[in-house]
C-alpha cells in the first residue's frame, strides 16, 4: 500500500502522467544533501570526487517532454578526500578558465521505470550531447532522483591526470543523487 502511494506520489509530484497537472512546477536540489560525483580509475585505484554544493533546477512541465533541467557545479566543489588530487584535477580541467561544469536538458522522455534525459554537458569549455536514464523515488515528503552516465575526458579536450607518468583511464563516470522537497 505504501509503495503504491509512493508511486502515485512520484507520478503526481513530477507531473509525469500527462493531463494530471496543467501547471509547470519548479524543483531545486537541496544543497548539502544532494550529491553530484565523478568516478575515475587510476591503475589499482578508484577515485570518487563528491560535490554537495551545486545548483540543480528542474522546471517540470505538464507534458514532461518540454521540461527543463539545469545543473551547474563549481569544479572546485568536488572533494575526493585528497586535496592534492583535487588540485591536480583542477589544473587538468583549467578550473581558473572554466570554473564550472554545466548540464542543460533538451528532452525528457518516459523510459521503463524512469525517464530518458537528453541534453548538453559543458565541461572544460566544450559542449557535448549526453543522454542518461533517471529513476525518481518519492518518500516522506522528499523526491529523490538517481542516475549516472559516462563521458570520455578526451571528448572534452581534458588531458588525463598522471602520477609517475601513468595516466588515469579516459572514462569519467558522473553520478547524481538529487533530493528535492515534495
Amino acid at each position, binding site marked *: 500500500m505504501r509503495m503504491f502511494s509512493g508511486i502515485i506520489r512520484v507520478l503526481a509530484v513530477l507531473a509525469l502522467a500527462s493531463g494530471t497537472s496543467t501547471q509547470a512546477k519548479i524543483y531545486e536540489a537541496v544543497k548539502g544533501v544532494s550529491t553530484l560525483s565523478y568516478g575515475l580509475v587510476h591503475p589499482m585505484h578508484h577515485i570518487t570526487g563528491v560535490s554537495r554544493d551545486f545548483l540543480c533546477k528542474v522546471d517540470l512541465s505538464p507534458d514532461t517532454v518540454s521540461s527543463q533541467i539545469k545543473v*551547474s557545479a563549481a569544479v572546485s566543489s568536488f572533494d575526493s578526500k585528497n586535496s592534492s588530487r583535487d588540485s591536480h584535477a583542477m589544473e587538468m580541467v583549467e578550473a581558473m578558465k572554466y570554473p564550472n561544469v554545466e548540464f542543460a536538458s533538451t528532452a525528457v522522455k518516459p523510459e521503463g521505470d524512469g525517464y530518458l534525459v537528453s541534453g548538453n554537458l559543458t565541461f572544460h569549455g566544450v559542449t557535448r550531447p549526453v543522454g542518461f536514464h533517471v529513476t525518481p523515488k518519492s518518500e516522506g515528503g522528499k523526491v529523490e532522483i538517481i542516475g549516472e552516465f559516462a563521458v570520455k575526458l578526451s571528448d572534452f579536450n581534458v588531458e588525463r591526470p598522471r*602520477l609517475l607518468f601513468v595516466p588515469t583511464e579516459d572514462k569519467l563516470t558522473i553520478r547524481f543523487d538529487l533530493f528535492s522537497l515534495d
Partner: protein
Amino acid sequence: MKHAGFVFGIPFAIALGCQIPSFAAEAAASAHPDSSPAPEAAPATDVAAMKDPLLPEVMSPGERLMWGKHGLMREIGAFPLTEESREKEMGLRRTMLTIHEIGGFATLAAMLTTVVYGQLTLNGNLSLGETHQAWATATIISYFTTASLSLLSPPPMVRRKEWNTVSIHKGLAIVHFTGMILTPLLADGIAREERGSSSPAKIDRDKAHIHQISGYITTATFAAAMMVITF
C-alpha cells in the same frame, strides 16, 4: 660538500613547518544523504558561475613566505596575485612536481647505491670508501634538489585540513629529511676521527654501526614515502 645538507636544508626546514589554516572561512559542514536532510530548499538562485579564492585555505609557512598574498614572489612582482598569474603558477607547479617525481627515482637509485657501497666498506672492503663517499655526495645533491622542487613550488588551487596519502608522504619526509641530515653528519664524525687517528685504515665500528642504521632507516622511509603516493 659535507655540509650541503645544512645549506639546502634551510628552505626545506622553513617549508616543512606544520601547515596552518588561513583566515578564510571554513567550508560549511555538509550533511550525509543518509542522515535526515534539513527540510529546507536551496535558495532560488539562477544557475550561475561560482568563483573561488585564488589561494588555498591551508598553506605551509614556506608557501606563505614565497607565494602568500604578501609573499616574496608577489612583492618582487614576478607573480602578482591574479587569475592569469595563478594559471601560470599551476603550469610551473606541475612542471616542478613532475621533475620532483623523476628526482625521487634518481635519488632512490643513488641512495641504494650509496647503501650498497657503504655496506661493502663496512664488510672490510675499505678501498670502496671513496666510492661510497662520492655516491653519498650525489645522493645529497639529488635529494635536496628534489625536495626543494616540491617545497618551493607554488601552492595548489585547493588544500584542506585532512588526512590522506600526501599527509603520510609528508610525515615520512620528516623522518627521511632528519636522516639525510644525521647520516652525513655521523659520517663526517667518523672521517674526522680517521684523519686524527694513528691508524686511519681502522673504522670506529660503533659509530659506523649507528651511521649504517641511520642510512638504512633513511633509505627505507624514502622508499616508503614514494610508495604511499597514489593519484
